[in-house]
């Protein structure tokens, strides 16, 4: 059983393990294993030097940050000054970030060491990890299968223990989907909780940056580092930092109302549901109250999501004209990226706005209303993360079949609520993740349920 995040942190703080050693062994493992997994696009040449600086602080008895010496992978759509935020695309393959994203500033302030830029689906347009211009990523927990996407590299790196924590992004499930397929922990925070300054857009009203880790403690730790009010952008919740790790000291689920919906069984592979149901029983045993909730319009969310995200992605990619940096996106991008740009361009035309874009925004109202109503009766909603098992790498599937992976994850993005994933078991050796959805700013409850399942696991 590999070492937990907090245990390792304690060893680094206590001087038992140096940050430099931690970085060196990560680099060694990456060197050894990543050629086959392909979870990193670029490594940080300064990682060792940064780690040594942290070690010096520790030796001098100075205060070090929450993430002291831990190695952190960053998804390639987040700006890290001096490294390439390629978005796994030929459009930005040589784009060296001229600035740090806000979350990177916060990680650095807490002495986390950025070990490198993770592979991903190109411009986050995917749910499999196969569309990167730098080659597909393998699933270390189910070799030969997709790791999921679009935060494919981050999830794979955690699964293979190549680094301690990863930053992913989630627009329609892109943290949760790979967390499920790779058997690890991931969380999409409440929309507006984590600053997006420096995140290269997929869908501006949907994107959130969030943690991927081997354990719930790691997710809580990374979340509290990056979350909370920022003066450096407009769309943010005006909330203080919350110490989620502290709140996780509360372990009991007694009295917690946990929602389940038969809609999930309707949409999901029975083998997956069996594993999920097993976990729900555990929750019952732990003293939680299981309540049925109604989510009659849940599956309508999928197509509405794809219309909205296409319009926003079209808008966000207009800057990739090749003049200031990179190349003109339409000239060099992959199929799915082009598909979304063309779709977005089409439906945002003046004459179609009402029929498509605005109508999709109405469906969003519906999905949101339903979920928020459910939270009047329950504290969290649990269920499967994906409706079907991950396919084998290279399997030819249609775009619609690919989109279908997202049925259960897009509703949380449309509603702006938070949702986390923790491993629930396996089907034919392939990991299955259980999704815990919470209300706006409901991360403490979500994490608590995830922690309980992890402990019971």
């Amino acid at each position, binding site marked *: 059983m590999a070492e937990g995040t907090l245990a390792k942190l304690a060893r680094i703080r206590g001087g038992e393990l140096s940050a430099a050693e931690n970085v060196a062994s990560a680099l060694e493992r990456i060197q050894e294993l990543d050629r086959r997994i392909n979870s990193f696009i670029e490594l940080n040449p300064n990682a060792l030097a940064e780690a040594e600086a942290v070690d010096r602080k520790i030796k001098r008895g100075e205060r070090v940050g929450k993430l002291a010496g831990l190695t952190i992978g960053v998804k390639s759509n987040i700006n890290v000054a001096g490294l390439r*935020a390629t978005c796994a695309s030929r459009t930005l393959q040589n784009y060296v970030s001229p600035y740090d994203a806000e979350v990177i500033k916060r990680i650095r302030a807490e002495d986390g060491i950025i070990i490198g830029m993770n592979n991903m689906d190109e411009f986050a347009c995917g749910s499999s990890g196969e569309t990167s211009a730098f080659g597909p990523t393998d699933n270390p927990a189910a070799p030969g299968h997709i790791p999921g996407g679009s935060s494919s590299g981050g999830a794979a790196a955690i699964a293979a223990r190549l680094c301690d924590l990863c930053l992913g992004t989630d627009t329609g499930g892109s943290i949760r989907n790979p967390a499920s397929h790779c058997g690890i922990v991931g969380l999409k925070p409440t929309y507006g909780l984590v600053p997006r300054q420096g*995140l290269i857009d997929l869908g501006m*009203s949907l994107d959130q940056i969030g943690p991927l880790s081997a354990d719930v403690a790691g997710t809580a730790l990374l979340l509290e580092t990056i979350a909370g009010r920022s003066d450096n952008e*407009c769309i943010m919740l005006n909330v203080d930092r919350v110490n989620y790790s502290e709140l996780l000291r509360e372990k009991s689920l007694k009295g917690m109302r946990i929602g389940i919906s038969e809609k999930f069984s309707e949409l999901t592979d029975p083998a997956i549901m069996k594993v999920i149901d097993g976990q729900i029983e555990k929750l019952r045993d732990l003293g939680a109250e299981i309540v049925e909730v109604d989510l009659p319009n849940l599956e309508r969310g999928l197509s509405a999501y794809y219309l909205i995200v296409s319009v926003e992605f079209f808008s966000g990619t207009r800057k990739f*004209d090749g003049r200031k940096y990179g190349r003109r996106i339409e000239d060099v991008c992959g199929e799915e990226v082009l598909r979304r740009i063309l779709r977005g361009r089409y439906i945002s035309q003046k004459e179609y706005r009402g029929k498509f874009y605005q109508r999709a925004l109405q469906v969003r109202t519906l999905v949101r209303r339903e979920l928020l109503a459910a939270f009047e009766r329950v504290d969290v909603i649990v269920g499967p993360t994906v409706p079907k098992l991950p396919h084998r790498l290279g399997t030819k599937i249609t775009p619609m079949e690919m989109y279908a992976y997202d049925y259960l994850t897009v509703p949380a993005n449309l509603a702006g609520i938070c949702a986390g994933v923790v491993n629930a078991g396996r089907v034919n050796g392939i990991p299955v993740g259980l999704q815990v959805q919470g209300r706006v700013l409901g991360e403490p409850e979500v994490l608590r349920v995830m922690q309980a399942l992890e402990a019971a696991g």
Partner: protein
Amino acid sequence: MNIKIGFEVHQQIATRRKMYCNCPTNYQDVPPNTNVCPICTGMPGAKPLPPNQRAVEAAVEIALMLGCRVYTNQTIYIQRKHYDYPDLPSGYQRTSLPLAGGGSLLGVRIREIHLEEDPGQYDPLGGNVDYNRSGIPLVEIVTEPDMKSPEEARNFLRALVRVLEYTGKVRPEAGGAMRADVNISLEGGGRVEVKNVNSIKGAYRALRYEVIRQREKLKRGLSVERETRAFLESQMVTVPMRVKETEEDYRYIPDPDIFPLILDEGWVEKIRERMAEPPHLRESRLISEYKITRAAAEVIVSERELADLYEAVAREVDPKLVAIWFRTRLKKVLNYMKLRAADIKFTPAQLAGLLRMVRDRQLTPEQGELVLRELAKHPAEPEKIIARLGLFPIKREELLPIIARAIEENQKAVEDYRSGKEEAINFLTGKVLQLTGRRADPREITRLLIEKIGKK
């Protein structure tokens, strides 16, 4: 022939920070791409900061000045207007829905007012882009096509500039702070838009060129198509722009990265209370309140500080006299010294003191003007200036001998006057004036001369 002219005026608002980032706004003073950051250069992942509050206030104030109704208690989205051009770093421009509308100026209806951001500066001939200007707040003022001639259009623009300057919240007109898209159609022809004219003079010339060009075409039986043209200032002609640069479905969407505005009525009222009185309204009030002529009022309100000075002085001295002085001698002095009213350093009390002396005949008007010039250069109490210039008015006893002397020394002129040449008296008056060191009133001199010459 029926002409319809309308404008879309873009005016830079005077703020220290840009609209969506904290970069400085002095784009003309620094090397290219210096006042820039990831936001105003459209770096991947850059998100806007909340909109500049002063810019929003300025736009509302301008709307009120133009007699518009401000759209309160309505959701006003900041939208993305998408088009492809080298000076637009993100491939879209952030532009608000209208904040106000339904105003008018000089009989021209104001259709709407909204907030925008300036793109960068693109030199199309050199192929250079400088983003220093990118992101500076703009207010856009759209008129109905109510103007019927280039002259009327020019007058409107002048009046508009005056209103904008009255707020004290816009960048001075020079150097492209104000740009206009000019629309013109002649009866029987389509609407032609001339884009990005950056001076009142340029707008006037472009319009005159267009009137001629379109009229000629229509006369020859050709049709004037709806199109967009560019104005080449150096050659004073308009030329067609290629369709690709101008065709557009802008695919507007509310910007998901900026919260919308809802303008509160109470807040708008506070702005209305605080703001300067609009110049056209002030002009009317001055005429009725102080009983001065329109000509004088027009000069007085040409600058807000000038009008402020006028009203302060008119409190102390006869407003009609003050008005005459402002229209003639003060304006002359300011023009001569290339001073704006805002640059004046002397106080209303000092000017009032001077005018009182002129009124009481302690000084001749001409002497008063000399003092005024000195006052503008080196502000001081008028009495001190008079002493310094040695401008004590001449006494009658001193004057008579000088008149006698002038008559003696200029017999020819005297003869000329006697034989009917009226101008000769002016010549003589001038001589006396010289001899008195300009310390006498010319009218008085002339009167005495005529008396004396007549006697002989």
